[in-house]
């Protein structure tokens, strides 16, 4: 396990150094995107329309933040990660088309995303679920917001961050998936626990 500090834009070469279990901290540009934003970005691409943001090399964050406007300035109140599995539908294509290098969320992602990470050079990282204040502290500024018509949680918030993390690499570019590794161990442990407690194994 190693610790890395990255500045955006992050290159393909950078992320190919990472292995599951590594810890990274990101400084630079972080963009939030949930289901709706993923969907719209891909629709824009289809239609050949220009996106308001260049995603190449930035860190993409699955997050619906609470933001307050005080005297014309956006202030981040809380910005913890949201469950990433909902974005599984879009993420592989998103990685392919927009060359994002770091995806951040919670709960893990599936096979399609892992394959895209391997093929195009991206990693998926876990940020501690619920750690909203820790995240908000690392956000130094709201640089801009796009697609606010989708609502506050679904909009694209462009943050300037400093040492955003700790982020645990959970899917690397070698096809490894930390969540899957843990869960297959859990299944094996479950059998032993059942035996120890004298419970029947069938399910």
């Amino acid at each position, binding site marked *: *396990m190693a610790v890395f500090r990255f500045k955006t834009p992050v290159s393909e070469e950078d992320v190919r150094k990472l292995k599951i*279990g590594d*810890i990274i901290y990101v400084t630079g540009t972080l963009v939030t995107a949930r289901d709706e934003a993923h969907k719209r970005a891909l629709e824009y691409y289809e239609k050949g329309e220009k996106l308001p943001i260049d995603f190449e090399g930035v860190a993409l964050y699955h997050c*619906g*933040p*609470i933001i*307050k406007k005080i005297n014309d300035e956006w202030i981040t*109140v*809380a*910005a*913890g990660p949201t*469950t990433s599995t909902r974005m599984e539908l879009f993420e592989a294509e998103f990685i392919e088309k927009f060359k994002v290098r770091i995806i951040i969320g*919670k*709960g*893990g992602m599936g096979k399609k995303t892992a394959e895209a990470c391997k093929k195009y050079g991206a990693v998926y990282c*876990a*940020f*501690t*679920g*619920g*750690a*909203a*204040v*820790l995240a*908000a*502290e690392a956000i130094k500024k709201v640089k801009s917001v796009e697609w606010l018509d989708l609502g506050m949680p679904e909009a694209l918030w462009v943050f300037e961050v400093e040492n955003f993390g*700790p982020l*645990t690499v*959970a899917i690397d570019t070698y096809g490894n998936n*930390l*969540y899957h*590794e*843990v*869960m297959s*161990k*859990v*299944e094996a*442990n*479950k059998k*032993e*626990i*059942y035996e*120890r*407690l*004298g*419970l*029947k194994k069938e*399910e």
Partner: protein
Amino acid sequence: MNLVQKIEDTTVNLLRLAVTRLPRDVKDALKAAYERETDQTAKTQLKAILDNITLAEKTERPMCQDTGVIIFYVKICDKFEEISGLSEILKTATVRATREIPLRPNAVHPITQKNSGDNTGRYIPYINWEIIQGNFLEITVFPKGGGSENMSRLGMLKPGEGVEGMKKFVIDTVVQAGGQPCPPIILGVGIGGGADIAMKLAKKALLRPITQRHPDPEIAKIEEELLEAINETGIGPMGLGGKTTSLGVNIEYAHRHPASYPVGVVVQCWAARKATARIYPDGTVEYLTHEVGEK
């Protein structure tokens, strides 16, 4: 002194305490877990949680962006007179807390999908009433996050499966949930009664400090056994592996119908928010879960 105002202010304060500061038992358990873990990934997750808790306390901001659905447990005493209009007072306090703290508006109409914007709506905040003897009013606020609530389950087991079936059901619920409910989790388990009673008891069991075992030694033993088993699964903090999947298992039970064996499991995330206070007729307020003077 205006007692109605006192109740409203205390309730707002309880909501603020609950979302910005964890009760001592949970905080201590998280610290102990951090010390115990040897796995680097697990340690990193627990450290992030502990740092987050400290920051939330210091900046008086909600420790998690999901400030939950607002649930109250209220004990009213036969000798406490300011009872009429209490549900309105609690509603007003919820609206105020939503604006002042702020809390995330989390009350959505299930058919129109419209968010009320202030955490109130039909049956929400939800109030559990209990009448006891004495001369005070006891209010517990219990904001419950959605991510962990979604992993809660009800099992209508066959009586023949008995205690063994119950243990399996609890362990399976945890394994199925994996990292989704933001572990380390706390489990509330309700056994018996009926479908609704088992779920209600499961949630109510979460009000008991995790350091306190059930008074019935038989039940206490099962609580310990299940906690150990769950931590042996290796799911770990955030489902990334480790020794700490759960901080505590609290069981509550009721007698059951001979033909049914209901088991309710309510999953609570590490952000186990709750706060309790007693209000006396002379306006004195006593906080039971948090070490604070009055605000």
